[in-house]
């Protein structure tokens, strides 16, 4: 059984249809990529999963439990960690406080503290800046912070929305390496990326979203001729 099942989800902002019958699954510990042009509806799908936008039809389930009608914080407590586009750093809070809030709904016990040690070991730069305001961190550091914060909740599934956006290519690559690492450790990941080439190469399975519909899905999409022409080609042209 897959961890996350999305069936025929429809979302509309007023008269504008953002998602028009999207279906998608993410298996236990699987890394799945969702690519598509700007405005294809990738972020909307993430928000629909988190209960931030309301679906007008369809079904979203996590381990067989429907997510519909649940509040965002309840969905988070099911073990779904969402890293929104633009990262969602709490800039006024210190690095430590950001990480502390990652484990908000867990007791702050020895286990949580050892998780903190593990996150800091994984991202040594965060340990150095532990008492700084998160707003003073660089873009790459902030991305590490929010991933670290997401890990503090011991997630079953991570939703990553454009983690490499606005980062230098080298740092972006570092983020992708971390994502791969997480996946290898058994955390399921749904990765949304505009950097389609890198993302599709990273994941075994992927989806292509266009105008609110899944137009392509399957394994080895990075090598698909259609994807190459429609999306990766434009990427190569520098768009």
């Amino acid at each position, binding site marked *: 059984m897959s961890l996350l099942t999305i069936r025929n989800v429809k979302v509309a902002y007023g008269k504008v249809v953002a998602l028009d019958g999207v279906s998608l699954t993410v298996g236990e510990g699987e890394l799945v990529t969702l690519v598509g042009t700007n405005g294809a509806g990738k972020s909307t799908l993430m928000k629909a999963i988190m209960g931030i936008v309301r679906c007008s039809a369809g079904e979203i389930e996590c381990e067989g439990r429907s997510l519909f009608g649940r509040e*965002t914080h309840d969905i988070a407590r099911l073990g779904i960690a969402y890293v929104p586009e633009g990262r969602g750093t*709490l*800039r*006024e*809070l210190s690095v430590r406080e950001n990480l502390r*809030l990652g484990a*908000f709904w867990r007791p702050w016990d020895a286990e949580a503290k050892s998780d903190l040690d593990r996150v800091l070991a994984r991202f040594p730069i965060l340990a150095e800046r532990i008492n700084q305001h998160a707003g003073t961190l660089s873009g790459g550091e902030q991305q590490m912070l929010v991933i670290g914060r997401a890990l503090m*909740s011991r997630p079953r599934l991570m939703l990553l929305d454009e983690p490499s956006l606005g980062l230098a290519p080298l740092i972006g690559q570092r983020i992708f390496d971390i994502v791969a690492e997480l996946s290898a450790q058994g955390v399921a990941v749904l990765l949304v990326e505009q950097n389609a080439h890198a993302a599709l190469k990273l994941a075994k399975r992927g989806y292509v979203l266009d105008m609110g519909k899944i137009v392509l899905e399957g394994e080895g999409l990075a090598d698909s001729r259609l994807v190459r022409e429609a999306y990766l080609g434009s990427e190569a042209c520098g768009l």
Partner: protein
Amino acid sequence: MLAQQLANGVMLGSTYALVAIGYTLIFGVLRLLHLAHGEVFMVGAFAGLQALLWWQFGPLAALIVGLIASAVIGMLLELVAFRPIRKRGNSHLAPIVSTIGAGLVLQEVMTKTFGAEQTPFPSALSRVIYNLGIISVTGSQIFILSVAIVTMIALHLFVTRTRYGIAMRATSENLQVAAILGINVNTVILVTFGVASALGGIAGVLVGLNFNAISPFMGVEMGIKGMAVMLIGGLGSIYGAMIGGLLLGIVEVMSVAYLVSSLRDAFAFGLMILILILRPRGLFQTGIRTER
């Protein structure tokens, strides 16, 4: 005289600060003005008065009764005047109207119960005067100042050391991010109202103890001053509200002491305008902008 006037300003300013912190906490999580907060402050003063009159409690117990009464009223206001509107989509105008209405209801209830005139507040504290070199303070003033300082330290520890305190600041910075971290935003908002209103209640009892009179309309002016302090300190900044409150208290007292009392409010709001011209986002700038 300057030192004594500074002390007077600090006394007045510490109550402004407590009220302004309440505004700023609520503005932080909701981005909305709570226009009945002045009345919550007033309710605290009357509750404290009852504690002193009916049950013959000491000032410390009166303070606790005042803060509990205000916290309850404040949380009730969130449930009645804010939450239903929030559930129906984000209107910025509706909560203004609903809180003004709630404030008027509180004023009317208090007027019917206690009369529209100022009610004398028993001087529960010693009138013993301590001469500390160039300034002299009464026992009651020492009590008031200690309460204000202890309250502010407690608040500082709450927002930096406790789970709900940090969650409150997170909610204040970004409601959606707080929610995706598993924070129940509605609970945090309710807690925020409780804390903010409790501070207002403490301020109400302190004003009663310090100036020996309270009235159902005392919240109106305090409400305006509290909002001014919030703007001076920087929207959403707790420490800005503390400093801004003291600053406003000192400026008011100085303008009365060295100029004319009729210009007091002109100076107070002149200070606010000046600070906003020089630093449009207040003394302690935060991520919150007024324009959204």
